[in-house]
């Protein structure tokens, strides 16, 4: 254990302390302040759990989480099974399509569905024109709409986890069950599914946490009585009503606590039980079945249905982006490039900001993530597991919590938030786990003997890293880099609290254009532009890593 490694660990810890622990503890401290006095206490928390309004919001959010989890599971289990087990045509295409929402910004989906399923959206207009219905059906405004939109956005997490599970289970378990006489559905329920618990839980946690994080979807649908939306409104609309502000912060802290506890609970649950088989020689493909005709047809129909819903997002946004005044008509009639002209001529700043901020965040990410991965995988520095843990925990923190805590922590005492560098810093802190994970797993795959050989031959550690490790790591790191960039590029929850005039990014531009004016086409065009950029980046990763599934989820399945 060398001094250099310890020094590196100290350095990384100080970055974490400054960018994660310090702001988040300020956030927690702030939630104990009592409005109108300089005293502290748990009054805000008591108020939160006594106020029927906040309690109702909390209950609503929990209910939404449960419903979204149920829906995604219900639709995800068959889908994952089809994708993992059935031999069928177009596997890659379907997988890519179904996984697409992971990289699409959530708000893009909402806008598309509002256009398509709105009261006078395409579906309702078509139904009314054909005379099937008299009055428009309310497809999306309400709890059901929220469940639908959020479920579609979160479905890939369940599918990915489960299909990885279905693929990697040792086939001998199922064969044993078959031999014992359990067949078909029963075997699936009692053997296959329980074996997939860990990989299912990995996705299910992320799904369950989403309604505690997503403030924008409820806001756009006009259903604001959910925890993240209420805290957004309390904090972003009331700058001097201190009680309101503290209650908003309490709501953020409460949802963070819920998120972290559930995250830890799932982790503990998976680790408590052992799910490994004895045999090592499983095929990489897993069990693949040739289904019967009828099953195959319904499997295709099912996949087409889900993939179609996902595809609606880019298609509808594309239609809206290339048209103007698309109102009260099932399909646009007035085609134009004006929206793009407006974006490129009048606000190229947004695109520039998005690229600059995400780019700088990426540089920070690499400068931090590579040494961190190295420490965690290759050394025995004390506290490296804690480092890993803290960084992974960032996945569970709602974006609002990060944004608000940065605003509180870096305004007066350390006036970092007055400079635009806060934007890439916040993006870096929030999206770090994505890069670290990728770098981490590529390090794991890199055989240490190669590095040792180099060092034995008398080459120093630094040169070994640049000449031996880095080229070998490059593939995984590049995927991590692009993934990090995509996630930083579409981040809005944190940025919306930190941006000031002139620092707007594309996602903020989409939000503002949608919310504050009739510039609907421009918002759609911006969202479409983001989808195109994301798609190009995705193509790049799939080239690098040879598969979209791997690209989106990293090597190693879960």
């Amino acid at each position, binding site marked *: 254990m060398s001094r250099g490694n310890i020094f590196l660990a100290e350095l990384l810890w100080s970055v974490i302390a400054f960018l994660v622990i310090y702001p988040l503890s300020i956030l927690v401290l702030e939630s104990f302040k009592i409005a109108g006095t300089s005293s502290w206490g748990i009054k805000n928390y008591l108020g939160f759990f006594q106020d029927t309004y906040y309690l109702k919001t909390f209950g609503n959010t929990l209910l939404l989480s449960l419903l979204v989890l149920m829906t995604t599971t219900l639709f995800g289990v068959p889908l994952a099974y089809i994708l993992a087990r059935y031999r069928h045509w177009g596997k890659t295409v379907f997988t890519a399509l179904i996984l697409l929402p992971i990289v699409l910004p959530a708000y893009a989906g909402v806008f598309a569905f509002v256009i398509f399923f709105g009261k006078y959206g395409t579906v309702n207009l078509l139904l009314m024109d054909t005379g099937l219905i008299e009055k428009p059906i309310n497809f999306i405004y309400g709890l059901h709409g929220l469940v639908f939109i959020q479920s579609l956005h979160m479905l890939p997490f369940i599918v990915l986890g489960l299909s990885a599970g279905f693929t990697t289970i040792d086939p001998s378990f199922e064969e044993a069950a078959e031999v014992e006489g359990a067949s078909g559905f029963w075997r699936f329920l009692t053997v296959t599914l329980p074996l997939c618990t860990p990989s299912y839980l990995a996705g299910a946690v992320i799904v369950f946490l989403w309604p505690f994080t997503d403030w924008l979807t409820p806001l756009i649908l006009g259903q*604001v009585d959910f925890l993240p939306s209420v805290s957004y409104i309390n904090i*972003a609309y009331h700058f001097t009503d201190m009680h309101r502000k503290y209650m908003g912060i309490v709501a953020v802290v409460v949802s963070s606590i819920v998120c972290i506890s559930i995250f830890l609970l799932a982790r503990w649950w998976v680790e408590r039980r052992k799910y490994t088989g004895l045999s090592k020689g499983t095929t990489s493909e897993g069990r693949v079945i040739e289904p019967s005709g009828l099953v195959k047809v319904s499997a295709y129909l099912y996949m087409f249905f889900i993939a179609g819903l996902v595809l609606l997002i880019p298609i509808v946004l594309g239609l809206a982006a290339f048209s103007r005044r698309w109102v009260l008509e099932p399909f646009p009639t007035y085609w134009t490039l004006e929206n793009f002209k407006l974006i490129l001529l009048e606000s190229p700043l947004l695109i520039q900001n998005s690229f600059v901020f995400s780019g700088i965040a990426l540089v920070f990410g690499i400068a931090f993530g590579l040494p961190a991965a190295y420490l965690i995988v290759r050394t025995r520095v004390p506290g490296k597991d804690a480092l890993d843990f803290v960084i992974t925990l960032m996945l569970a923190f709602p974006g609002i919590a990060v944004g608000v805590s940065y605003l509180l922590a870096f305004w007066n005492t350390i006036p970092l938030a007055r400079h635009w560098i806060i934007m890439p810093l916040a993006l870096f802190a929030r999206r770090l786990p994505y890069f670290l994970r990728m770098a981490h797993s590529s390090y794991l795959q890199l055989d240490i003997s190669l590095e040792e050989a180099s060092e034995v031959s008398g080459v120093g550690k630094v040169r070994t890293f640049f000449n031996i490790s880095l080229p070998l790591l490059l593939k995984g790191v590049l995927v991590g880099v692009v993934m990090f960039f995509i996630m930083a590029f579409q981040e809005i929850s944190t940025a919306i609290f930190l941006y000031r*005039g002139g620092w707007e990014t594309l996602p903020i531009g989409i939000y503002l254009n949608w919310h504050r004016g009739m510039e609907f086409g421009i918002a759609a065009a911006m969202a479409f532009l983001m989808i195109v950029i994301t798609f190009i980046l995705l193509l790049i990763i799939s080239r690098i890593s040879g598969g979209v599934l791997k690209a989106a989820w990293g090597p190693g399945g879960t």
Partner: protein
Amino acid sequence: MRKRIVATTIFAVLSMVVLMTFAAEAQAKDKVGWVGPVYKELSQSLNKGFKAYYKKTYGKDVDITFVRPGGWPVCVDKIRAWGGKPDADIFLGAGAPAHEILKGEGFLVPYRPKDWDKIPAEWHGMKVKDKDDYWTCFAPWIVTNLYNEKILQRLRLPPPKTWNDLLNPIYRGNIVHTLPYASGTMHETLEILLQAFGEKEAWAYLRSLAAQLARFSTGSTDTTQLVARGEIPIGVAQPQMNAMAARKDGYPVRDLLPEKTILVPEAVALLKGAPNEATGKIFLDWLFSMEGQKYVLEGRYFAARTDIKFSVWEKEGFEMATHAKKALGVDSFWDLDVGFIEYDLPLATKRWDDVNRYYEYEIYRKWSELKSSLSLIEEVEGEVKAAKAQEKDVTKAEAKIKEARKLFETDGKYAEARLAATEARALPAAAGLPTGLIIAIVIALLISVVAVVIALRRRPG
């Protein structure tokens, strides 16, 4: 060796941060910052116009930043939060109460722009500029409601003409407005109702109106957007020029001037402690010049100077002047004749925060309770009426249901009102309509109990 890795990393990161900082700060230009609730079209138009003017007059570029944290109340709160060290120079937009509050709290400095005398001092009782020069109106408008004519035709509904028309049950679920803390126009609407109808009646009205809503929008622009796209056909509390702007964009939106309304003097002021005060003053002078006023109209707000004639601008080939003339029906904004109320500005300024909070806590947060309470009251009222038509004695039930309505409208006690309505329904004379429902529920319960028992019996072990 190892130290070098660390040193290189640190150096790389630090030097990059420093470089980026320098790159950003290198070209220092003349700057001016605006904060305010004006719409994007206006800020963009003024941005274009002022930049061109600055270049022409001073031979330099000017850097303009504009932040719109939200509606007026949000902007006022933002300026309060800056605590005298503003992040902008100009408070651009918002009506008289917002400016009066900021003036009273000492966040403004007086400045009299050139051509100040071209703005009227007062109009139908509403202050249009401050006599101490703290704020001046640059774009007046009137509080209106909007509707989407195509959707209303489709639904076979007539446009609602008066405030009371909006309470007609045929419009239920087809109306949208926002919250007073999110939008100054909504706040002014509350003031109009409070001052025109009296406090008690106004709150009763607002409770009933809330039951008519499809939902609350997140801001007045959100309301316009929903009406323009037809999602919800009627939008309450909207700036008058939104209809003009939407029509210019090709949406079938019309405005309704309700019988009682006010003028909103969208005004501008110089902030105390402004970092670029000198440029701010140049901007104010320009804004009230004929050229600046044209950019106001180009930004889809009505221009404020009294010496403006739309027909003159129209002859110069200025397209927006035609739209404005068509939207207003007169040649200058100040020729309008509308049913204005006598607006008590000091009172409105004083209770600004209280009104917003009362609405939010008593109506918005209890919205679902409010709706279910009112629907029960309406149901029972119908039953009582039906019983009366059958010549039953309903005096007791009638008294009770009246009490329920009073509890609902005047006191805002939704749960108590519900209780009173239930009691009224239970009074003997009122017909026993829900018996069918009760029988159905009992049967359903019985069946499920039997099912559960059977299921439990069948279970092995």
